[in-house]
């Protein structure tokens, strides 16, 4: 009860403070530069020059403190050791030699290869199928639903699927092992299975991201002009040919957008690995490795920061591409 009251009052203060800033700063500007009297013209111009900055200021301040400053600060920290001594590129040379880092990098690249490709593929298939059926809307909702589930919730859901009972622990209650048994195979502890366990973790993210890919690709498919499709049918093309030769080439741009968006998500993947294996059994990824160095055992902010810089570098091409596209579009 006390917690609820505290929550409610802090919510009101936080939100109200925000509204108050915009209201009173505008009021103040109107008072200081009134649009009447002898200097009305000059005041209006002055107010017009200042007001945009009043509007932008909170966003700008928060963005600078919470995203821009950390980028530089992280780079700075990555050149120092855990006690704050300047060590040059030592943290980076350590990275190159560190086995866990190499494992994470390889795993991350594996994730980068598999997850965006698989999610986009399944998304495309789902979009193509649901576009043509009566209950398409419902089908899309159901495939899209995992988007609303947290990575942690998804981890619990899938851990249950992968559940493994040893020899004397009775019936298999994990769906995957039960299925394997039906087809005559031996149950496995999937999560600890070297190398392949990475793919069982990836399945979770693919399961989540397919809905996202489907929604966007489905909208793009609907946007294709009917004429090209009808012309193809008149020329005797089969539905499959139309899909692969007419529709897909027209939505390449959207496919690329979906692909890169999922790529960025993949690079930051943390929760799934953290909840499923915590990086054990050869499933470590960069984001989780960085968390380890920052907050566990003996924290080393320098090494942690160096790992973040690597993630940052991997994201940069996507960033440049996005800015380029946005710029092109605004022309």
């Amino acid at each position, binding site marked *: 009860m006390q917690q609820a009251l505290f929550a409610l009052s802090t919510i009101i203060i936080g939100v109200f403070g925000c509204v108050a800033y915009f209201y009173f700063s505008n009021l103040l500007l109107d008072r200081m530069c009134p649009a009447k009297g002898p200097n009305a013209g000059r005041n209006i111009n002055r107010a017009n020059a200042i007001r945009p900055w009043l509007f932008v200021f909170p966003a700008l301040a928060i963005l600078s403190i919470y995203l821009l400053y950390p980028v530089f600060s992280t780079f700075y920290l990555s050149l120092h050791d855990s006690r704050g001594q300047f060590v040059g590129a030592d943290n980076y040379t350590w990275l190159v030699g560190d086995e866990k880092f190499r494992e994470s990098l390889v795993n991350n690249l594996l994730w980068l290869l598999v997850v965006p490709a698989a999610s986009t593929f399944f998304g495309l298939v789902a979009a193509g*199928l649901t576009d043509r059926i009566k209950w398409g809307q419902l089908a899309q909702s159901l495939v899209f639903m995992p988007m609303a589930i947290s990575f942690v919730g998804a981890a619990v859901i899938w851990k249950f699927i992968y559940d493994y009972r040893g020899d004397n622990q009775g019936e298999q209650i994990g769906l995957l092992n039960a299925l394997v048994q039906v087809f005559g195979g031996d149950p496995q502890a999937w999560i600890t299975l070297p190398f392949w366990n990475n793919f069982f973790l990836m399945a979770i993210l693919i399961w989540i991201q397919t809905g996202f890919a489907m929604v*966007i690709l489905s909208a793009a498919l609907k946007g294709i002009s009917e004429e090209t499709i009808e012309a193809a049918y008149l020329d005797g093309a089969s539905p499959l040919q139309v899909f692969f030769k007419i529709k897909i080439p027209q939505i390449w741009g959207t496919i690329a957008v979906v692909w890169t968006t999922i790529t960025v998500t993949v690079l930051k993947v943390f929760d799934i690995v953290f909840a499923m294996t915590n990086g054990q059994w050869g499933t470590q990824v960069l984001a989780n490795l960085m968390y380890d160095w920052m907050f566990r055992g003996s924290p080393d902010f320098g090494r942690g920061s160096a790992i973040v810089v690597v993630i940052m570098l991997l994201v940069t091409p996507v960033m440049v591409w996005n800015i380029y596209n946005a710029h092109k579009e605004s022309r």
Partner: protein
Amino acid sequence: MDMAGGKSRLTWAVNLSAALLVLLWIIPTVGLLISSFRDRDAISTSGWWTALSASEKNVIERALAPGEAKPEGDLWVIEGQVLVGQGVSVTAFGITSKEPVAFTPGDTATHARGHKITVQSDGRYRIEYAEEPSGSRGQRLFVRAETPPGFTLDNYREVLFAEGMGRSLLNTLTVTIPATIIPVLVAAFAAYALAWMEMPGRALLVAAVVGLLVVPLQVAFIPLLKLHIGVGLGKGYLGIWLAHTGFGLPLAVFLLRNYMVGLPGEIIESARVDGATDFQIFRRIILPLSFPALASFAIFQFLWVWNDLLVAKVFLGTGEDQVVMTGRIVDLLGSRGGDWEILAASAFVSIAVPIFVFFSLQRYLVRGLLAGSVKGG
């Protein structure tokens, strides 16, 4: 004719594949949902797909003490009931741990010491001694019983009140609501300025926002934690609101600006001509017109903050009054890894609200996704 036949076969194939795909996508969630309503024994002895059929369990109970035996003709007899009030039926019983299911209900088992034991399928038992027995330890009865399928809310009761999920639900709400409203407000003003107000460096600011869209959050943790501790914020709610606001702002400004740029300029111009200030234009014209975009970002931010684990782990403490639901579930995965009844119910307590928001406001969510990626690239 042939053409029509081919078409209907294709329609069938498409419907069937779509159904398979949907099934594949919902089965994982359905499995856990069903499990969250089953009791502990049922979950750990049988798969959730058998939830609708009866399940069997093995139980050991002690009969009443031999001292309680009553004379009946030549014999001394103990009568009683196993598995009282559980609505089960006994399918087999035994009297030694070596052969726990050697007898069927109604049979009579003879103990090495001479007494005879019978267990009925409804759980009633009868033990006959030839002479007056003594002692306080009752005969052990091994019983295999069949439980009819049943569902229970006990798991939810336990996680909400005993495992602390109820408290964490409050904590998550405390984090989520301000962390959704504040960025919407801040971004709306900024987006309006970037879309419709004359200011130097506007294009540069927009490009910066697009660039910040993909900056990995991990960048911010160490510097900001140091900053928060340095200025005395420490770990707490104010810190995490600001952090979530910062991380959500690029997308918010980007989405809202894209939307506002598309609003008809004539309305804004004519309002200016009529002497309205920018603040008035914003409040009376832009805000109401931008409602769909505001809603779609708010839903995004809500889902993202509600489902977040990493930011909460970094910016909140580990005390009872600050652990959010995702953090609690991760803890439970560690401490109660095999207790699926607890894990399943906890997961669904945390999933319920986002799923509800998702299904009721899906329209806005889809619109936001489209504006965020197709238009902007």
